[in-house]
């Protein structure tokens, strides 16, 4: 990318576009998130206002709303509105930690799990009811209750009670209600599964790759955690098929936590997911929360190595997809939905303003309320900066309007964040303030030093490279990854209309 001397750069003809080199081309994005990839000569002509009015380049620039004289204000407004539709609702994702007890010991446990005899970390029936009462105060017509832990199956009676109580309450509230559960599945049995299927609880688990890697990182005493998880994935998928549900849409979702040991096994990881019948793979880097804060030196890695891993894995997934195997990478799908689809899938960790408090709330086993799951994890590490109330005593408006929620909302505004305000990827991005707080000591993150920013930029660089230079089949695959098919089976009876504004895909916590 080359820029002319400052005196020769024009501005009045254009819009407030941002730009970034992508290989030997230049990516330009406008404020509402439309984009073009220009050659160096095209970029030079655009920045000097030397684009002939009858040229194809002029038509491209005008068509994508990059020219002031042809600026379509109404289209810009509609696109920004579509991208920010989540601000029109209250919190729709409600994460309930029904226990901290867990039967597995994960080397990176983000949730600061407790031993199996720590029964005092179980949510009581009374707190479960108070939690549901609080959840139903949300102004959002869409409610997803996500069971987390620890391992939620450890406190299954309270899970059942919470579900029954919520269903009963929803007869009057008539919210669009869904349940999801994040479980390692090792304590699943036929009776529990039958109940969860009958209540349409969407199940999600963790798979860290091939059995040796998974078992090494997710230790289940005297047994293979991989065997348990894979066996139940198959059982659940078979049950969906037996119920007449489309297996391409209804299957267990799994999530990966990438450690240093994962990096060379990119191909084995993808193959494992495909073999398990998973249609999506979420290549998440390790987070700095929970036990990972202590074990990090052994598990962590430079993010440039992660991005190499990511490129290899996704290249392979695109190749598999081209050969007819349905598999997508979740980060890519999130960003591509914003880039190609012009809407925001409302993944709470990649949006602005942040989802903390505005889009989601987390509830501890003791009834304390947090802006986000990461806030709850930080609390378990002794820092209650993101605690904003209690289900028994707090008013809804006091929680959602809490000064901490206001602070993270301001801190996550990329129009007011150094570097982000100039970043070409600003329309598609967002970093959770809790991550900046944990890694940098401030909710106002310094993005140049943020590992998460490096990851998000690297992924978007990769995607735009593919969009700019990939062949037609590659672009078709990336287009297909933006397809959103609502899983209406998981909506509770009585709910009407299309599923809500999207939620953070259920995120297994080890």
């Amino acid at each position, binding site marked *: 990318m080359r*820029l002319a001397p*400052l005196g020769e*750069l024009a*501005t*009045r003809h*254009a*819009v*407030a*576009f*941002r*730009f970034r080199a992508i290989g030997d081309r230049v990516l330009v994005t406008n*404020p*509402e998130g439309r984009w073009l990839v220009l050659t160096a000569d095209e970029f030079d002509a655009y*920045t000097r206002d030397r684009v002939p009015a009858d040229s194809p380049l002029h038509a491209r620039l005008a068509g994508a709303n990059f020219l*002031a004289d042809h*600026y379509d*204000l109404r289209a*810009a*407004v*509609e696109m*920004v*509105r579509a991208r*920010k539709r989540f*601000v*029109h609702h209250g919190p729709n994702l409600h994460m309930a930690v029904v226990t901290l007890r867990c039967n597995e010991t994960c080397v990176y446990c983000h949730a600061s799990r407790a031993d199996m005899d720590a029964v005092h970390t179980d949510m009581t029936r009374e707190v479960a009811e108070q939690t549901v009462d609080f959840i139903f105060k949300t*102004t959002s017509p869409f409610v997803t209750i996500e069971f987390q832990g620890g391992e939620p199956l450890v406190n299954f009676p309270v899970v059942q009670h919470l579900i029954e109580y919520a269903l009963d309450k929803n007869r009057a509230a008539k919210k669009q209600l869904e349940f999801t559960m994040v479980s390692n599945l090792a304590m699943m049995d036929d009776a529990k599964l039958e109940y969860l299927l009958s209540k349409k609880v969407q199940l999600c688990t963790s798979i860290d790759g091939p059995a040796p890697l998974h078992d090494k990182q997710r230790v289940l005493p005297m047994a293979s955690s991989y065997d348990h998880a894979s066996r139940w994935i198959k059982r659940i998928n078979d049950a969906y098929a037996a119920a007449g549900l489309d297996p391409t849409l209804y299957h267990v979702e799994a999530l990966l936590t990438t450690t240093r040991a994962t990096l060379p096994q990119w191909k084995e990881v993808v193959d494992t997911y495909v073999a398990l019948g998973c249609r999506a793979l979420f290549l998440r880097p390790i987070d700095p929360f929970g036990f990972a804060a202590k074990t990090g030196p052994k598990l962590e890695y430079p993010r440039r190595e992660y991005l190499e891993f990511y490129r290899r894995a996704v290249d392979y997934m695109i190749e598999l997809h081209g050969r007819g195997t349905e598999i997508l990478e979740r980060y890519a799908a999130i960003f591509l939905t914003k880039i190609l689809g012009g809407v925001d899938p409302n993944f709470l960790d990649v949006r602005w303003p942040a989802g903390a408090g505005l889009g989601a709330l987390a509830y501890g086993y003791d009834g304390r309320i947090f802006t986000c799951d990461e806030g709850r994890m930080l609390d378990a590490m002794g820092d209650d900066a993101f605690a904003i109330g209690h289900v028994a005593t707090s008013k809804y*408006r006091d929680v959602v309007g809490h000064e901490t929620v206001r602070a993270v909302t301001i801190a996550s505004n990329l*129009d007011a964040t*150094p*570097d982000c*305000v*100039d970043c070409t990827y600003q329309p598609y991005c967002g970093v959770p303030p809790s991550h900046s707080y944990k890694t940098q000591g401030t909710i106002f993150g*310094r993005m*140049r*030093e943020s590992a998460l920013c490096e990851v998000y930029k690297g992924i978007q660089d990769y995607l735009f490279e593919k969009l700019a230079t990939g062949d037609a089949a590659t672009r078709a695959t990336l287009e297909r990854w933006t397809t959103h098919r609502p899983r209406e089976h998981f909506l509770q009876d009585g709910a009407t209309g299309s599923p809500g504004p999207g939620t953070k895909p259920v995120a297994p916590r080890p």
Partner: protein
Amino acid sequence: MASLPSIPGELASADVASGVVRLTVREELYPLDAVFAAAFTFIKDCWVVVDRADAAHWAIALTPKTAGANAELLEQWVGGFANELLACAYRHRLAKDHRATVEAVTAAALAGALGPPSLDELEDFDFSNEAFEDPLGIAMSWEDKYGKKAKAGDAAPAGSTDDDDGGAP
């Protein structure tokens, strides 16, 4: 401080032993916001100081965080900073020239996000009949304010100022 081979000495100099490079840039060309934006992109790799060199120039000092900086590396930092500064200055101009449009689009897109006022807000509303100050007569009826021309000797209605007939005899 020594000059760098391919960069004019009045723009940048380097202290290789200390691993620090200093630049001066013209204020009339580069607004402080652009200098800050460019400097910010270096905070991962360098310790950065921005200061005023004199009335017409900004001074920037970059000290790479890793040891072992040589003249070649320092020259790369200067070149990288110069390019980033140009990009930031251009972005700054674009943002400044089109700020009104961006704000209008954002405001229009987000209008309605607050929704209608809730009962809680209604509870806070002041329904009392207490008088409040109204020096411009905004809360007055048209008749009270302008309706009847005051007869000679009558007091002018509150809020009226000059003769409504424009001073006709």
